[in-house]
């Protein structure tokens, strides 16, 4: 490795809601970016480059919105870069921004992810306006049914995840859904959407944005010396694989496994369950928690659901997952990946508030997209050498 370290010194997000009609697209991204700059004790002029990520432009009806958002994000006279890798885009946005610092291209980079789903109809846009869309739940339900058949998981595991994440969201002031009374029973009584996924096991459609400020090693150390704990990027990885051919396993995709192997190797992790303190995974439908635990080697084959059932993935469990409430509680699609990456960074900075995992020093985050084909992951730490 010849690249230099990158540190996250600023994190901001909007309050996520069904409709943020109080702000324009520009106002939405600016709200998150301003919070990230305040956290980093920087101003617009301190930023050298902006990386923006979001999912399809058809969702809001603004093509190549980085052009219009150049003004709102203070990118006049600066490089403005636009990433789009489906649902994983938020994660990829963070990775592209970190690479700009790690390679010495820029010292201070602002990464922003957003989606304002209330501006359009995502289901309609997914079908390109042809009304042909299964929707994400329809696409993933067959994979989930296969997982249940293979693993023999009891059917309560999905509802357990749905309840846990919504309870975590009650501790996160930015979360969209606040389902105070949710229970296994109420999840199981909610309408069936795509067998076996019920309404309360599915993510909402949200308006929201997330922003992060990256800086070089000197910037990270200066923040630390000032009493502002940075999060250090210990490793990052991306993988894509094709949608369909007989060699692909869409239930536990090879891309998901390779991506985890890559990021753990970079971070010096050989025993992920023991060395990582908590995980923020992209779980838009409840069953993806046990599935990703297995695909990312955080649980053995067929053991992901047992981890969930044992309570280990609860906020006070031995391996907390989705402390923020996850995608199940807030889903501004283009921001959702960056929100996962941001939550991992908040945890190792000790700044996660009521959803803080005590003593978290190393955290992993993941985002995925398309038909479980695009993966982005990173591992962040409270220090550059957490296992030393």
């Amino acid at each position, binding site marked *: 490795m010849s690249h230099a370290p990158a540190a996250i010194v600023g994190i901001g997000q909007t309050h996520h809601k069904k409709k943020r009609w109080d702000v324009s697209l520009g106002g939405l991204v600016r709200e998150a970016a301003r919070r990230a700059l305040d956290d980093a004790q920087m101003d617009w002029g301190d930023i050298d480059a902006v990386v923006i990520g979001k999912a399809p432009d058809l969702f809001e009806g*603004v093509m*190549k919105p980085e052009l219009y958002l150049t003004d709102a994000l203070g990118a006049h*006279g600066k490089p403005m870069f636009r990433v789009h890798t489906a649902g994983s885009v938020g994660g990829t946005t963070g990775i592209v921004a970190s*690479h700009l610092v790690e390679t010495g291209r820029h010292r201070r980079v602002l990464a922003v992810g957003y989606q304002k789903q209330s501006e359009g109809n995502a289901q309609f846009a997914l079908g390109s306006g042809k009304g042909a869309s299964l929707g994400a739940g329809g696409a993933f339900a067959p994979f989930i049914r296969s997982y249940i058949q293979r693993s023999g998981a009891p059917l309560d595991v999905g509802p357990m995840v749905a309840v846990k994440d919504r309870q975590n969201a009650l501790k996160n002031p930015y979360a969209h859904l606040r389902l105070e009374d949710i229970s296994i029973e109420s999840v199981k009584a909610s309408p069936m959407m795509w067998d076996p996924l019920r309404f309360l096991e599915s993510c909402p459609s949200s308006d929201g944005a997330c922003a992060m400020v990256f800086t070089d090693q000197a910037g990270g150390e200066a923040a630390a010396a000032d009493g502002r704990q940075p999060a250090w990027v210990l490793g990052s990885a991306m993988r894509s694989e094709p949608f369909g051919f007989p060699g692909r396993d869409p239930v536990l995709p090879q891309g998901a496994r390779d991506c985890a192997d890559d990021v753990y190797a970079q971070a010096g992790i050989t025993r992920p369950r023991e060395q990582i303190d908590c995980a923020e995974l992209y779980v838009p439908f409840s069953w993806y928690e046990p599935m990703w635990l297995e695909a990312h080697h955080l649980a053995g084959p067929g053991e992901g659901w047992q981890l969930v059932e044992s309570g280990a993935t609860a906020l006070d469990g031995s391996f907390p997952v989705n402390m923020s409430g996850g995608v199940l509680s807030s889903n501004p699609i283009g921001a959702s990946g960056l929100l996962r990456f941001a939550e991992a960074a908040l945890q190792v900075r000790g700044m996660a508030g009521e959803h803080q995992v005590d003593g978290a020093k190393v955290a992993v985050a993941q985002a995925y997209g398309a038909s479980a084909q695009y993966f982005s992951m990173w591992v962040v730490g409270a220090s550059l050498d957490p296992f030393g």
Partner: protein
Amino acid sequence: MALDHAPGSHVPGQHPDDIAIIGWAQTPMVRHTDKTETQLLLEVVTDALDDAGLTRADVGFTCAGSCDYVAGQAFSFVQNTDAIGAWPPKRDSHVEMDGAWALYEAYVRLLMGDEVDVALAMGSGRSSTADPALIYPMEMDPFYLAPLGADALSLAALQAQAVLAAGAVTERQLAEIAARCRRDAQSNPYAQVSGEFDVDELLAEDAVRAPLRRHDLPPITDGAAAVVIARAEKAKAVCENPVWITGIAHCAELHYPGMRDLTRSLSARKAAEAAGVADGPVDVAELQAAFTHEEPLLVEALGLAPTVTVNPSGGPLAANPIMATGLVRIAEAAAAIRDRGASRTVGHSTSGPCLQQNLVCVLEGGRA
């Protein structure tokens, strides 16, 4: 902006982090093809890797540039993973920008200096499937500009009027640019529009959108391009004549045309400075000047001398495969060095209304 190059610091190819273009390909540029974007990319990926003497298995990172609105489909790039042969799964990314920015991400990825030493950048677009005049207003600010329905042509006309009013260029000179590009395009086997045109006859035509006449506009084009890049050690091992990227940078400026001096391009100038265009003489510049008036404007912004040969391929006036047009410029700038003996060339790409965003790539051959 950070310094994105090391002026005159070393012979290109001597440093492990030096990165070279080692292969490229483009499709024939046509008014319409029935092939999908995936099929177009399948061809150029295969051909570009053949050109580099490599296979898909050698590629450690891929990045594509395309646009859902041009394709008319959400997540349109997802099926293009079939073209890159993403099995076993690949390190891969996508930008909703011209393929030139995909090349930028690929370049930065190679600078990471890990086991990834070959990367592939792609750009693809089929503009024939819809009316660009309906699509392009949607890339404007949705509150004040998009409702006006101002398409790329109208905004270009606004800028052309400003350039003409400033006295920097005449309508005859613009017609001469069009005639020169299409004459030069006769020797470009991929070009869509080429031939000999009489400037007086061109000037006798009515304006399409004043002051722009038909010859001032690019054609509507379907096409794709791919470029293979490698780190120094790999490039020298597999390629006899790598074309070194000695500087690459991009820059944006304010979106609202009314907030800018349309006779200049601040973002093109800053990108050129950051890429180090002025660090040596330039033989050839391939500019994404899709409208005639953009050529003199960009020549001035990039600080190019009158001796620089501009768009010998014919440029976007000869073929304009949106989302690949900029990457084609960089491939043509590389070809000018490897295949036609130039020493130092510039490739340029742009995006947005009135050249809002610009990317500049400086290329050099090996020095003896």
